[in-house]
């Protein structure tokens, strides 16, 4: 009995690919016809969509309305575990003007029909109560600038140019932001982050490696990991070739010529293009593999023009996109099952900027969970390989500081520089827990520094604990499930090369862990909000307009830019601040003032935006009282922190939800219970084989040999064969698998 249920996953993926093409074309032919004729308006009624998605409502699935107007369903191949639909699925591909094709509609295959350990996230999205408001809204409101543009490009037959044009356009915007001022422009003697980066170029170029982390620490000593140093060295070499004055040791301090500025800006753009751009292009391809090209393009645009990153990297001046790019590359490799490459990339990210540590708990526990899931043998070997690769990468990165190239003590310099516990709890005003609560409770007065370090460490750990636990528990649970499978069937144990079911949890865990670091850890900068923004934007890019993820994602992005306002104002980036925010919100189709849905989030957003705008107006009109010179930054912190805390809580909530959705409540609840209803739905479909087959052959598609279908079935299981005709369309391949297994199992 169980075999019928697991048969889907037993089928090799190559075989699927082969059959996929013809089945799909057939299905799309048929369903698109019927859809255009009858059911287009019906698609908008939520009841129809939701009805079929739970196992309890299976009977109603075969109701009369289906015959008259079959609901287009996602081909169940797309539900299979290779696909990564779980990022959230739009109702009907919003950029598509075609009638609902199977690929673009929501999956409503009965839960029990899907391979158990591979439930896709799209099905979870259907149960998201917050979505029910949004299903019915019209197509117009979902339109965004990005979608309109992508649609236009596709319509004019130049969709191949979408990615180059988007990347070029983004480069243009980035460069134009760079025309403005940068951190510390014209503020001797110390200048700012720009000067720090430039100084590192001169430092690494002219000094031997062992002095890198110890030379004149008072003037912007190097305090980033070695990969940054190597990159600075490379830039220094190129800069020195073009004009030695830009990077002359000591003499070039504070150089601000337009040419040297153009050179510095070029280096940021170049590394961004080399690392971050490929990472996000790959991201849309890998993580949204099963989505339409248009949706992928829209997601790419959302990521490309993310205002916070643009402003900090290209306005303020930093190289965050390199670290974020490496992290994204790691995620891409994890998604495609190449964990070792992923680990290398993440280590490189860590080796570029220590802020990547914010992700480490999530990524580490994900990899451990995967090892657990793979079982003692495969898991152990993967674990050992991962450990080796990671250690090797770090050894390579720190090679010049290690024996025999340097005395062992040399390693202490970089380590002490990279982890500056000697500094304060927070610098400037940053929208995290410590700074916000400092308004009422003066932490620095009441607690000593070691105590604060300890407290922040504990709070941070507590903060990322839920994400780690969900991942590890998920790994263990799925291990239990696959062991249960193994008992009945000795084959098909998970292999390390295929992505496994824990992947959907990863973005939420990343968000959870990075946000908890941002909120609770020691020595946080306001710019660090970029780190939690990455997983959130990444989730946002795949979400449909109006969904909870979308609303929260845009809100947090906007608030994050707002939280950096004091910094941007100091850098003289007020105009880019406005321009990028407006552009990006327009691009993703977000109107902060629109109150189309009555959700809590909408009201909250409206309140927050009102507060933000009032604060800006206040700041413009009045100067702060002498008693509170930091009045506006503190108010800024008080507005922003609750939103970040909310995001942190939301990430936990979604993590638990997704975890639940992926595997049910536990190993004991699934196998036995689900097999019974599963069979009851399969049998009617088996009975449906003949008509389906006839249609297949009529349409010139060589289906499965007919003689395989003489199955005997209980009449009780066949509700009404005629009612089922239309249902069979999407199941051509599934039934083929079934008949194969069934012919072996049930004696003809």
């Amino acid at each position: 009995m169980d075999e019928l249920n697991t048969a889907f996953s037993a089928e090799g993926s190559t075989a699927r690919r082969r059959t996929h093409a013809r089945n799909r074309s057939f299905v799309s032919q048929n369903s698109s016809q019927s859809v255009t004729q009858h059911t287009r308006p019906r698609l908008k009624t939520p009841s129809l969509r939701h009805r079929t998605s739970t196992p309890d409502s299976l009977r109603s699935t075969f109701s009369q309305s289906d015959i008259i107007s079959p609901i287009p369903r996602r081909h169940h191949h797309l539900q299979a575990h290779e696909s990564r639909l779980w990022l959230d699925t739009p109702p009907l591909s919003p950029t598509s003007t075609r009638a609902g094709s199977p690929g673009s509609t929501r999956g409503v295959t009965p839960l029990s029909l899907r391979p158990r350990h591979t439930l896709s996230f799209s099905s979870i999205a259907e149960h998201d109560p917050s979505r029910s408001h949004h299903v019915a809204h019209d197509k117009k409101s979902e339109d965004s600038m990005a979608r309109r543009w992508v649609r236009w490009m596709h319509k004019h037959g130049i969709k191949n140019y979408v990615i180059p044009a988007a990347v070029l356009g983004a480069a243009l915007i980035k460069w134009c932001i760079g025309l403005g001022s940068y951190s510390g422009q014209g503020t001797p003697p110390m200048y700012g982050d720009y000067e720090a980066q430039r100084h590192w170029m001169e430092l690494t170029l002219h000094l031997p490696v062992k002095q890198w982390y110890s030379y004149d620490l008072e003037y912007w000593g190097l305090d980033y990991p070695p990969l940054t140093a190597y990159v600075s060295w490379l830039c220094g070499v190129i800069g020195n070739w073009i004009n030695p004055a830009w990077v002359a040791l000591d003499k070039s301090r504070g150089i601000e010529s337009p040419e040297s500025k153009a050179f510095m800006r070029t280096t940021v753009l170049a590394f961004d293009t080399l690392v971050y751009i490929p990472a996000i292009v790959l991201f849309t391809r890998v993580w949204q593999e099963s989505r339409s090209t248009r949706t992928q393009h829209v997601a790419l645009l959302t990521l490309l023009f993310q205002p916070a990153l643009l402003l900090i990297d290209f306005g303020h001046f930093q190289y965050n996109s390199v670290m974020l790019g490496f992290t994204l590359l790691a995620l891409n490799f994890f998604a495609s099952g190449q964990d070792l490459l992923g680990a290398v990339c993440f280590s490189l990210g860590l080796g570029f900027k220590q802020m990547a540590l914010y992700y480490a708990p999530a990524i580490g526990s994900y990899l451990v969970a995967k090892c657990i899931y793979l079982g003692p043998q495969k898991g152990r070997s993967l674990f050992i390989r991962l450990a080796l690769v990671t250690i090797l990468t770090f050894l390579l990165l720190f090679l010049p500081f290690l024996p025999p190239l340097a005395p062992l003590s040399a390693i202490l310099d970089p380590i002490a520089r990279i982890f500056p516990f000697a500094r304060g709890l927070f610098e400037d005003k940053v929208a995290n827990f410590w700074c916000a609560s400092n308004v009422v409770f003066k932490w620095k007065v009441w607690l000593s520094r070691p105590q604060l370090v300890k407290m922040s460490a504990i709070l941070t750990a507590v903060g990322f604990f839920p994400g780690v636990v969900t991942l590890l528990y998920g790994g263990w649970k799925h291990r239990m499930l696959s062991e249960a499978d193994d008992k009945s069937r000795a084959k098909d144990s998970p292999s390390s090369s295929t992505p496994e079911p824990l992947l959907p949890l990863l973005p939420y865990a990343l968000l959870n862990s990075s946000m908890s670091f941002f909120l609770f850890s020691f020595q946080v900068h306001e710019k660090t909000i970029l780190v939690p923004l990455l997983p959130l934007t990444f989730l946002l890019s795949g979400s449909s307009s109006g969904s909870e993820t979308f609303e929260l994602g845009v809100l947090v992005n906007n608030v994050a830019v707002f939280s950096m306002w004091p910094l941007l104002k100091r850098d003289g980036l007020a105009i880019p601040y406005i321009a990028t925010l407006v552009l990006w919100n327009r691009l993703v189709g977000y109107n902060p003032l629109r109150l189309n849905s009555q959700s809590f989030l909408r009201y909250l957003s409206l309140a927050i935006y009102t507060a933000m705008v009032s604060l800006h107006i206040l700041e413009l009109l009045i100067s702060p009282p002498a008693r509170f010179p930091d009045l506006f930054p503190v108010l800024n912190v008080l507005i922003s922190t609750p939103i970040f805390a909310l995001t942190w809580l939301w990430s936990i909530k979604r993590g638990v939800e997704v975890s639940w959705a992926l595997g049910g409540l536990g190993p004991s609840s699934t196998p036995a219970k689900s097999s019974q209803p599963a069979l009851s739905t399969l049998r009617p479909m088996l009975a449906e084989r003949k008509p389906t087959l006839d249609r297949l052959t009529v349409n010139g598609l060589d289906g499965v040999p007919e003689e395989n279908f003489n199955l005997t079935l209980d009449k009780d299981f066949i509700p009404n064969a005629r009612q089922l005709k239309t249902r069979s369309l999407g199941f051509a391949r599934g039934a083929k698998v079934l008949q194969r297994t069934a012919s072996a199992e049930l004696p003809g």
Partner: protein
Amino acid sequence: MNETHSLLEPFPQKEPIPASKQEGEAAEPVRIFRWRTLLQLDVASADWDILVLSTCLKLLLFPAYRSTDFEVHRNWLAITHSLPISRWYYDTTSEWTLDYPPFFAYFEKLLSIPAYFIDSKIVDLQNLNYDAWSVVVYQRITVIVTELVLAIVLQRFIREAADPSVQRIISVSLFLHPGLLIVDHIHFQYNGFMFGILLWSILMARNGNKLASGFLFAILLNFKHIYMYLAPAYFVYLLRSFCLSPTGALQPTKFLSLANAVIIVFLASLGPFILMGQLPQLLSRLFPFTRGLNHAYWAPNAWALVTAADRVLLKVAQRFGIEVLAINEAGVASTSRGLVGDTVFAVIPNVKPIHTFIITIVFQAIFLTKLWRLPSYKSFVTALTLCGYTSFMFGWHVHEKAILLVLVPLSLLAAENNAFFRTFMIASVAGIFSLFPLLFTPAETLVKIVYSILWALLVFEPLQRKVYEFPTSLPFVIIDVLEKVYLAGFVVLQIFVTLFPLFTQRSAVSTTYADTVNKTVHCGTDGASPCGVVGADVTSGSASGLEFLPLMLTSIYCAVGLVWAFIRLSVLYLKQSEDGIWT
């Protein structure tokens, strides 16, 4: 007979239905209706997208390089604000005297009022070279805001167009034109606003409201007199299709109404100065006949090719000692380094203003004859383009920015058919590239290149797909291939232009980076700024004989394309059948 037929039904398939059906007086109610619709706000979200996108980009360009035109316009704000009208055209406090027609002066006066409240130092006449952030933001915002005229007019073009989706591409391509971005939003001028008026006038002509068309063009002339390049086409077109009946009889009422409209405009503009008896002074400011044949950076026209040929002949003569070619000694030094001043040829006989004038008139006369015989809207736009083109090609002391006068009306014809599209593409690429030397600072170099590539990609590709035809005969295949090679050559040229100073600079040793930076940039008065030359000077640091090579090559290479496009367009227009059907 044939001709009258063409007049009655100019382009039945393309003309908006109400205009083609209701000729003459019957068009009156329609016109009133249109004036009202001009104020209606029904903008598609795609149009808003374009507006938001371009405005955001322009906001980001605030801190970009600005030429002395920025200070010129600031000075005009100060002149118009702090001096009485009688002193406007006499003031010489700054070297950037007011040399635009009175409407532009009034326009500056209008802009100076809010400027005073934002920062009174902006309008302080003695506060020369004021470049505080307040004045930068204010002046840049005025460019963006006044350019909305262009945006609105282009949006109106889409309405009632034969194929709105194609017209939308053309409209957007004009609104986002790299030429306008480079000249208006970086270099600093108000061309977007004035091309808005020009296109408004053309739109009125398209919609059959020729009186308004003439009226608007008269207004435009009084904003910037460079539009006189286009005036002959307007004159012929309005005379033939508005003042004369299809049979050729003068319609006095129409003629008088048009004449009155134009006179009123000119009176409003020049009236005060005529009353004050300042007309000669005003005209001497507007038309300073003291400049050379070529601009410092040779505008890519026929004279650039002639000058280049002279250089080549000189080299040949010197090399082989050919006595037949009498070498003019003054010419040997003259243009060898492309410096400002009068161009004296070494080998070829010198060109006098009168020569350029005669050549221009002759060519224009040819095109205007054609327009007289075929006075339809499309024919008018082509003749307009060709008038501007002729002046650009053969005019005396043409500035490279004047190429916009050609490219803007030419864009309206881009989707006509493959031949027109090709002409448009070559002229646009060469014309926009020829504007690149206006921006020579390293930071803006990337902006102009990337923006132009994006624009070209998003405009040419969809249009080409609409109109593409395979070349049918061998000559056309050869031309097709040559044109493609020519276009590809721009990539090579840009790489050369970018890398050349990098290498000469390296060889010149970068010790002097500080003084190259501190060097002040001097540009000529508006319409005559040798910024390109000085720019090369700034980037190359040391003077070498080859420092103008990139500029010269740019000029010549663009001139080749623009001359070819001119020939193409002329042939296309003159071969156009006169039975009223376009192709």
